[in-house]
């Protein structure tokens, strides 16, 4: 029992580390795609989160609000949505790496 718990914890740690590493090496979208993603976030995410990302039916997405949230969780929220809330999955419109790029930009101040 204890052993399996240990293995599980080890597994979690490993995945988290790998996840972190993957984040660090995620390739940046090219300039054209970045522009598209910025527009998508401002205009379409903006219908619930506000064009200025100060929140609406959905919560605010400003750096101060996101600071204490884990990056992986935010990426998963964008990519897979959040069941039980109005947040839909966006995976048909972007890759997971692009979702990560969006999260990083949101956390450091989203471009216009």
């Amino acid at each position, binding site marked *: 029992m204890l052993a399996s718990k240990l293995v599980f914890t080890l597994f979690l740690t490993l995945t988290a580390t790998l996840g972190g590493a993957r984040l660090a090496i995620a390739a940046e979208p090219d300039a054209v795609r970045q522009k598209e993603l910025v527009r998508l976030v401002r*205009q*379409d995410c*903006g*219908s*619930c989160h*506000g*064009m*200025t990302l*100060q*929140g*609406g*039916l959905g919560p605010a997405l400003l750096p101060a609000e996101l600071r204490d949230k884990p990056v992986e969780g935010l990426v998963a929220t964008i990519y897979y*949505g959040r069941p*039980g809330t*109005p947040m*839909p*999955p966006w995976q048909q*419109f972007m890759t997971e790496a692009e979702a990560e790029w969006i999260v990083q930009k949101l956390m450091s101040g989203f471009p216009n």
Partner: protein
Amino acid sequence: MRLLLGVLLAVLLNACAGPQLRGTGDLGLIIERATGRVTLVSTSSQQPYARIEGLGDLSHASAVYSRDGRYAFIFGRDGGLTKIDLLEARIVKRVMQSGNAIGGSISQDGRIVVAQNYTPGGIKAFDAETLELLSEVPAEYAPGKFSKVVGLADVPGKKFAYALFEGGEIWVTDFSNPRQPKTQRYPAGVQPYDGLVTPDGRYYLAGLFGEDGVAMLDLWQPEKGARKILENYGRGQEKLPVFKMPHLRGWSVAQGKAYLPAIGRHEVLVVDVATWKEVGRIPVRGQPVFVMARPDGRQIWVNFAFPDNGKVDVIDTLAGKVVHAFEPGKGILHMEFAPRGENVWLSARDDNKVVILDTANFAKLGEISADSPSGIFFTSRAARIGF
């Protein structure tokens, strides 16, 4: 003598010129969401006649009109409430009334303007003349818990009906005494996302996001409470993702039926307003956002959430199906009919223009350039319940 005549003539001419008079019945405004600007338009000339800047964050902004159609009250996302004069084309007064607002409404007698707010959740009433704060009703549905307010609608008798997204209730607040409003609460369902009052002012409907169904309150017999209609319209099937919340208003009612957007389904639901039973559903090409009847009720125009927001489907209410499906522009955010419906104005956000179409043959009549246009509001709303 000649000089005297000349002066006399000049005085006479001046008197004739006087101030140029005009009515307000054919005026309107276009919200330019990204630039904090509104463009004032005439529906007769189909041309803009003025632009007013400095209205703050206008993403998701909406407007209501004074009874005479001269003043528009514009509710900005940032909580700004701006009163503009359409005749003098200027801002009369502007106040910041909350941190995060979603729209507003005006009382039957035109004296009270009410804003609905997300943060802090609740409604606030203002004197329509001065924009002085009269009273507020915090949406505290449980001790210390505040809800976002959605679907605010003016209803007869100086009352306003609205729904609480987190609270799952419909509230009706009576402003007979504007400084001491009285509120009645009715359980509605899971996550109401918007609401409407029928054009006769009798029924208030709140669309539910968290469950399949619509909550309906008979305002003539509110003691009976809200009941569910269209229950289980999804029949347990998995919902499609909803990339933008639909909008409800009294424009959904046509020819004794209400045409309502299904949540998570590419369908328009049809309900008989006499029995409140579902009488049909019409497949469309996306998640409906606005489902709007032409004022005569013969056509229903439907636009869609991302990624189908370049499409528009037109339903013929006699045939009960889509008769025209087209792509009038990129990012169609809103539609507004001329007062009697002979043409419709569509904002094409990503084309930076408003497109004017003939509703009889769908021919393009003209376009007006505007910076990321969203809502279009004509003064004909001034005389309608729930607008």
